[in-house]
């Protein structure tokens, strides 16, 4: 055994996870090679020092300051959300300075993949990473029968200064989420569609559109949209059914120990309606009974007592927001 091989076994030897034949070899080497023997004692000593690093108390008031921030965050809707799921394989194999590159690559790869899977996209990513001018989105194939929501997003949207979300339905089970603004300042957005993340900017003359495949039958696709303009921003959640049902139906069901998000998901699935919501959707809904109700009634029944209101913005598309 040479010195290099011996040193590579130090960890396993110290942890006693070395197999016995190699252990014999290593011990023989340590007995013969004074340098490695000394290196091993230093190794062991260094590890023992590590193990004895003292714990340090967080500063006094640390928890209080965390909770103070939590309170602030709870009141305002989170501004720009940074997606922080990282591809660790890349972070660690490309080595440190390349991490930024690695993330950029991952996004580009996602972009390329989505280009292949979903026909022509104009995501903000194009603008960000490829400096590509957005071309006309292929929304001409709209099914005129289906819902089309010109979403004037709530009075709070400051006359279109924020991100205006518009939901279109493209034939063959594809939704098109259009993002635009009347603001001249860029509105930054992050979108998470079932784990695939997009981010970018829109300004008044440069809208974006993202195609979202409808979920499989009987399930609901949840799309998270976070956006910010200066200090102001909002977190919106879009619930998309496998199929939008344009004719009203009545349903009977009950919901227990749920959250607002659970309720919206359920109503989206039961009625085949799309819902665009914001506010604290984690708010608990202890119990709600929906009896032979239309979607409007069901939304009212479930949301009214927890401080949310819903209104229809187009056939089969609802907006949900906290009551101010």
């Amino acid at each position, binding site marked *: 055994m040479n010195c290099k091989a011996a*040193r*590579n076994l*130090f*960890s*396993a030897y*110290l942890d006693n996870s070395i197999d016995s034949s190699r252990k014999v070899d290593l011990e023989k080497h340590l007995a013969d090679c004074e340098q490695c023997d000394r*290196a091993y004692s*230093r*190794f062991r*000593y*260094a*590890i023992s*020092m*590590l*193990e*004895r*690093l*003292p*714990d*340090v*108390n*967080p*500063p006094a008031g*640390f*928890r*209080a*300051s*965390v*909770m103070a*921030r*939590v*309170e602030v*965050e*709870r009141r305002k809707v*989170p501004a720009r*959300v*940074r997606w*922080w*799921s*990282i591809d*660790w*394989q890349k*972070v*660690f194999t490309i*080595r*440190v300075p390349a*991490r930024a590159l690695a993330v950029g690559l991952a996004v580009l790869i996602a972009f390329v993949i989505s280009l292949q899977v979903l026909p022509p996209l104009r995501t903000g990513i194009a603008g960000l990473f490829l400096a590509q001018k957005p071309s006309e989105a292929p929304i001409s194939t709209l099914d005129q029968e289906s819902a089309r929501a010109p979403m004037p997003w709530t009075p709070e949207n400051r006359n279109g200064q924020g991100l205006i979300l518009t939901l279109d339905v493209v034939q063959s089970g594809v939704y098109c989420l259009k993002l635009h603004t009347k603001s001249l300042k860029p509105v930054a957005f992050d979108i998470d569609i079932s784990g695939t993340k997009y981010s970018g900017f829109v300004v008044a003359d440069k809208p974006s559109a993202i195609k979202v495949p409808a979920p499989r039958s009987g399930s609901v696709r949840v799309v998270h949209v976070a956006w910010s303009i200066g200090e102001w921003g909002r977190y919106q959640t879009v619930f998309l059914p496998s199929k939008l049902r344009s004719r009203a139906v009545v349903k009977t069901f009950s919901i227990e120990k749920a*959250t607002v*998000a659970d309720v919206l998901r359920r109503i989206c699935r039961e009625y085949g309606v799309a819902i665009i919501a914001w506010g*604290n959707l*984690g*708010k*608990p809904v202890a119990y709600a009974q929906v009896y032979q109700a239309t979607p409007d009634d069901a939304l009212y029944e479930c949301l009214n007592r927890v401080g949310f209101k819903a209104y229809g913005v187009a056939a089969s598309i609802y907006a949900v927001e906290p009551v101010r």
Partner: protein
Amino acid sequence: MLENSVGARAGSFGDYEQLGEDVLIERCKAGDTAAFDEIVRRFEKRVFNYALRVTGNYNDACDVAQEAFIRAFHSIQTFRGDAKFATWIYRIVTNVYLDERKKLKSHPTTSLDDTIELDENSVTRQIEDSTPSPDEIVQTKERMRILQRAINALPDYQRIIITLYHVEHRSYEEIAEILKLPIGTVKSRLNRARLAIAEMLESEPELFG
């Protein structure tokens, strides 16, 4: 170590201390901030110490630890019971550190040894004799300072792994889960980090002879 938040709890949240982790998390998900407060109480020390060893800097550790809890608060809905909360929060702290490290390194920092006054008890614990002499206390402090400097000199991933293993006492399996790396990779990187530390300490023979 468990109960040193002197007077911070007036007893009004007493019930929460009795609750299991899963119940607390359910309550957090339902928007109960008192439950989140209890989570912070239980994990602040581990989160802070991990952040401290990884950033090597008291101020940065405060920032990273705080940011990690805020992210945890925001994404608590995505936490599933299939991993331990500790694993999840270590992952968040690691991500916060990796996201913020550029910023952290660019603002003027005070190094760990300037800002951390080791209290006499923790120094005493480092020394096996019952009554350490002033010289020994000084020497132990010096060793700790050099050791932290060596940790700081490691590449990020080695520092993260060595801290998780030797300071936070996480198992290989848990580290693999925190970092989403294969166990074999965790082991080989830990070995490299240990060798690097040992090598760096060789240059301080008077302290680590």
